[in-house]
């Protein structure tokens, strides 16, 4: 039964990983604007002059 203790340790470790990912996302500003990303994803990138844009599309904060 005591194996459960070890398993719980691991599961919490995994959960902490996700928590850290969330905190990172908040800190890097991904939750500042909840409208434009939903619109932006619908923009086509087929035009050639826009091809290099996709690389730079990440916000720099």
């Amino acid at each position: 039964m005591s194996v459960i203790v070890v398993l719980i340790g691991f599961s919490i470790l995994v959960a902490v990983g996700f928590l850290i990912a969330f905190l990172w996302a908040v800190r890097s500003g991904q939750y500042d604007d909840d409208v434009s990303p939903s619109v932006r994803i619908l923009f086509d990138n087929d035009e050639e002059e826009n091809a290099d844009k996709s690389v730079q599309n990440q916000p720099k904060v």
Partner: protein
Amino acid sequence: MTECIHCGLDCGKNPVMFDDKPFCCEGCSMVYQILHEKKMNRYYTMMPTPGIRLDQDNTAGTRYAFLDQTEVRSQLLEFSDGGISRVNLFIPGIHCSSCIWLLENLNTLHTGVIHSHVNFVRKEVTITFRDSEISLRQLVELLHTIHYIPELSHSTKKKDEHQHTNRKMLMKIGIAGFAFGNIMLLSFPDYLPGGEHVDQLMAGTFGIVSFILALPVVTYCSSDFFLSAYKSLRKKIINIDLPISLGILALFLESSWEIFNGYGPGYMDSLAGLLFFMLIGRWYQGKTYESLSFDRDYRSYFPIAVTRIKEGIEDFVQLKDIEKGDVILVRNGELIPSDAILLEGEGSIDYSFVTGESFPVSKKTGDFVFAGGRQTGAALLLKVEKAVEQSYLTRLWNEEKVGESEKAGMQSVVNKVSHYFTIIILTLATGALIYWSFFDFGKAVYVFASILIVACPCALALTIPFTFGNVMRVFGRNGFYIRNTEVIEALTHTDTVVFDKTGTITHARSMNISWEGNPLSETEKQWTRSLARNSTHPLSVMIGEWLPESKVIIADDFREIAGLGITGVVDGNTIMIGSRRFITGNDEEVASSLSTVYLSINHTIKGFFTLENRYREGLTEVVKGFEHYNIHLISGDNDAERSNLRDIIGSDESLHFNQGPADKLSYIRNLKSQGKRVIMIGDGLNDAGALLSADVGITIADDVYHFSPACDAILQSSQFGRLHEFIKFSRSAMKIVYSGYTISFLYNIVGLTFAVQGLLSPVVAAIIMPLSSITIVSFSTFSVRILAGLKKLRA
């Protein structure tokens, strides 16, 4: 009706055509041409008619020349290094997905732009660009040419702060949610029958892990509650955060004691759950309109720099560096930054944003000019009489600072309730402690803690955020934007309403026009209209719009005489439009509620146009809707409209005319000293003092993102007729809050019956506490929505 491809407005009978597409004006067609050239037509296919129309003279000219100044540049730029700069601009015009697309593809319009990123919620665009290819000024001018005009002002710092607190809040919610979920899993055995038979080692481990998980919740996530409780205690007020803090502490200490003494798992799951729900409530309540600004001070209206002429050389100086005696140049459309004397040029100064009065005031050489007006017409040379800080307008504002403190100190319902609540709970807990200590001291302490735990007024604390948060959203969807949720409660306590006249109950830019005199023939109308179209004076514009649509004939020898009228030759006929004095030579003042504009053709007086203030649609309904209120009206105008207004408002004593800004302020203060709770409804800066000192100050605005004095709420002018409905809705919302309180008290009574008997177990706590929170959240949310549906507000 033909719709303009760019902005969607009516093009009239003679649209501007380009590429076989109709446009309402040259400006719109210009933007289309620019985008068409760069193959950016997708702007128009993504959303129909996404463009912005510019009404005034819209050439950038030298308007942005000050951006070339190093000092101004460094103030605006976020970052500049190695030839690459980044700037963050507030563009109120951003409104749809096409806007986002266009602004994020600025690099197609100009190769100097490296990258641009829109924050839609805050209506901001962050642009990174190469200094060698495009300067900040050129960049702003580029935005101007496509009609996305950035608002350049001094106060951009405050927004960052808001963003920071929002992020912090989200992090706290994340941590609390994480702890809540995991502790609940660890507590699961206790929820099931036979949970007490769990292996000792495991129960101990689970307890310790729960304790570790709960630590950040108590220390980090609840810090705001402790801080607020402490602050209010120092002011000798009991607010809702005090019983919450007591509950949190009791929960944590009791649970830790149980865990470390091996008595059981404690209530860590309830603790984390409560914090999680309460933080969500706070976050929801705090999500206000980030792109609207409710606390503008005069500086946000003023330009960053002005043109100064020193020894014949023009240069730009920052506003704060202007001194008495400086000679400054103010161009068409620019704001006069300080009180000054007119040296050269014909002033036609639009004080609409100071006084709400829509007609420009004419000024001659040697006249004294107050700050805050906007010059319409040719450039002016002014000699500064007072530094910006000492100008009339600025001082007006500083006086209003006093007003701010007047608003504080209003006891909110939740504070009153929590005051009694805390006292009752503490008495009950102490009573139980004394009672039980006769039998079993250990149990007595346990009961004491249990009572504090169960009584934690979380459901109580959630009622207001969710009810008012939802009300705020309903209001926002209907064009009524409030500063924060406290305004709703303040609205329900009001009993007096004070209206400003010009621009508030009357339309700012449109009037009822009629013609008196010899009937005009069609050609005469065409001539008059052709001449009137040459001037940007509001009266000319309105007459031009009122006359029937016809082909515009180019006027020769057009002259505009400031303060008098316009003259020109159309088809060989001399047309003069202007004041009575200008046309008839008669200088007598006629006291009348109407503005009159005389017309003469070939030196024969044809008659005059009368222009009458148009009251906003729904004014009578609004006045009727305020039936239980004392209604007052204070206007800066003369009392020419007294009889009209008496019919609408009903009483003569409450009409006040010729009131300056300071009079308005003291009028409101006087009402308040009589114990009245006052709503002030105004629009211009002359109402600013009154708006601030009233219990609720509401600004009426045609465009909510532009020019509104500091206030508690902004009402879109098209929604004016529903004002009373909003206030009624607030009252109903207050009833929802009281019902929510009743529900949470019922839960508390159930919980307390367990607690006083010493029967509170983690299972009971785990059921009652989250359940009550969830009940309250859903009750508040749904009842507001249903109510909005009943009142026919868009939910």
